[in-house]
């Protein structure tokens, strides 16, 4: 491919250059004003977004904390009317509806939990 064989005629190139570089109707100041009016300000929104993100994170943290507390393991429920608490290293407390609390000694802390 020989580019030299297909150079633009010099006069065409000269006219093309002149035409392409014709004075624009908008000067630089007008262009700047146009742009400032048309392009959105990205600085302020991002600050606002940061505030929103921080607020959302705070709400999320509160919700997670609430849910964690709500779902934290409570006493083991064996029957609807029976609740067993681990009260010490080798002692469990059995609460039954309509009866006195019973402390039961166990060999280890978890072995007999849940056994009536």
């Amino acid at each position: 491919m020989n580019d030299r064989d297909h150079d633009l005629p010099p006069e065409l190139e000269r006219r093309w250059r002149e035409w392409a570089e014709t004075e624009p109707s908008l000067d630089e100041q007008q262009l700047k004003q146009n742009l400032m009016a048309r392009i959105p300000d990205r600085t302020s929104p991002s600050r606002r977004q940061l505030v929103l993100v921080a607020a959302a994170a705070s709400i999320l943290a509160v919700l997670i904390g609430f849910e964690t507390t709500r779902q934290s393991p409570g006493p083991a429920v064996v029957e609807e009317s029976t609740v067993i608490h681990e009260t010490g290293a080798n002692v469990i407390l059995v609460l039954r509806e309509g009866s006195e609390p019973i402390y039961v000694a166990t060999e280890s802390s978890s072995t007999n939990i849940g056994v009536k």
Partner: protein
Amino acid sequence: MRLVRRAVEGDREAFSDLAVAHWRRLLALARSIVADLEAEDVVQDGLIKAWKKIGSLRKAESFSAWLTRIVANTAVARARRRRVFQPINGAEVMAPGRTMDDRIDVQRLLVKLAPRQRAVLHLTAIEGLSDREIAEVLGITSSSVRVHRLRGRRRLSELAGRGGTDERS
């Protein structure tokens, strides 16, 4: 480079200053690709697109080529969509009785070229870019640049040689 970095961080004052610095060069490119009347509009559209995408600019030193690419692609898309390249005046291009050089009407000749050929010829003849630079700006390969330039030059030479008329169109 400082202005570019500020613009990337979202400083629109810095971006506007950059746009002003590139305005005439981009406008000349757009003029070669679309009709004169639309060129300023195309460049401003391109600048707004560039503003929206500037956060993705990785290298500050690539800003000029990156911006040129956005404006060139905007202009090529506009030229393809309209499919009409309207000279701003309807003057007779090859009026009889004038010399060949006097009769050259750039707009009337460019209308015979594909938008991509106009862009390649402009970047070659007016901006003096290398094939590799043009390829980077237009997002095409260097061999495509050579093909577009060759075809565009052939076409223009043919048209200029026969006085701007084109029996095929």
